[in-house]
């Protein structure tokens, strides 16, 4: 077993009282105190079009060998560009097919997807990833066709 710590802090002078959040998460296997012991490594990818592409595809033996959704995994993604107006969208859904996207209220289609949010230059995110669901490929879509550099890493059991 490994010990992986993810220390998060958020400080702000927002509002009249400001806000401070500090949390040190030790990444553990599902329902246990045993640490996660697998990772993809830090992947760096440059995208040169505004096409939507799958960053990670769900399922065993693909990228993160997370066979069932009772396993634990954490996904870190960062936009390492420097232009504050450029971003890429991050979403969850079935594999990109190039076909028109269907609204996520559609129950079970090949193009069902949901947008989580946008990572502008320098932004990062960390989420748990239900990598076993067939709706949970992770896709990204750059806002510009010039180089968009993405870094990501998955920690899993």
């Amino acid at each position, binding site marked *: 077993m490994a010990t992986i710590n993810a220390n998060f*802090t958020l400080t702000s002078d927002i509002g009249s009282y400001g806000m401070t959040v500090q949390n040190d998460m030790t990444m553990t296997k599902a329902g246990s105190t045993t640490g996660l012991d697998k990772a993809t490594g830090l992947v760096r990818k440059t995208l040169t079009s505004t096409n939507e592409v799958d960053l990670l595809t769900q399922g065993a033996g693909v990228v993160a060998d997370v066979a069932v959704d009772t396993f634990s995994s954490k996904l870190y993604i960062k936009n390492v560009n420097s232009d*504050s107006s450029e971003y890429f969208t991050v979403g969850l859904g079935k594999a990109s097919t190039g076909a028109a996207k269907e609204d996520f209220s559609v129950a079970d289609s090949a193009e069902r997807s949901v947008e989580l949010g946008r990572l502008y230059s320098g932004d990062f995110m960390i989420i748990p990833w*239900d990598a076993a669901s067939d709706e949970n490929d992770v896709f990204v879509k750059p806002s510009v066709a010039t180089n968009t550099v993405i870094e990501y890493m998955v920690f899993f059991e």
Partner: protein
Amino acid sequence: MATTTASLTITSADLVGDALSLSSTKELHKAGTTTGLEQTTGMTTLHLTATTQLDIFPVLPATPAGQNKQAWVYICNKATDETFYITVSIAATNIGRLYAGDYLFMPYSQIAQKADIEITPNASAASTGIDVEYTMIHEGLTYPTSGD
């Protein structure tokens, strides 16, 4: 303008052959600008005692005014029992499970109707009760009107 700074440091001495240390720090800005976000929901603490799926950020109207404005969501499972978890989902699509002490920090686009963010405790957590904290920092959050 407010200044809000998020930092994340991931470290491990024994995950791989060499020590892992990964750090990111970023000021949170309005979409496409270098102007800081100025609004927040504040930090909310809930004590949940049922497995009912709850909207912590609500179902949006058909054309949300906050669509594509920048927003950040932080959710933390404050439980200490490692078997207690909450499932976090958006628009009924699972993002993943937050086990005891776990958190997430992610952008939120408020893209369209039904893009609500939900949490669901597991049965053992609900039977004992589970504390969850969450907040959003944003440049414009769309709330449903009384008619929605």
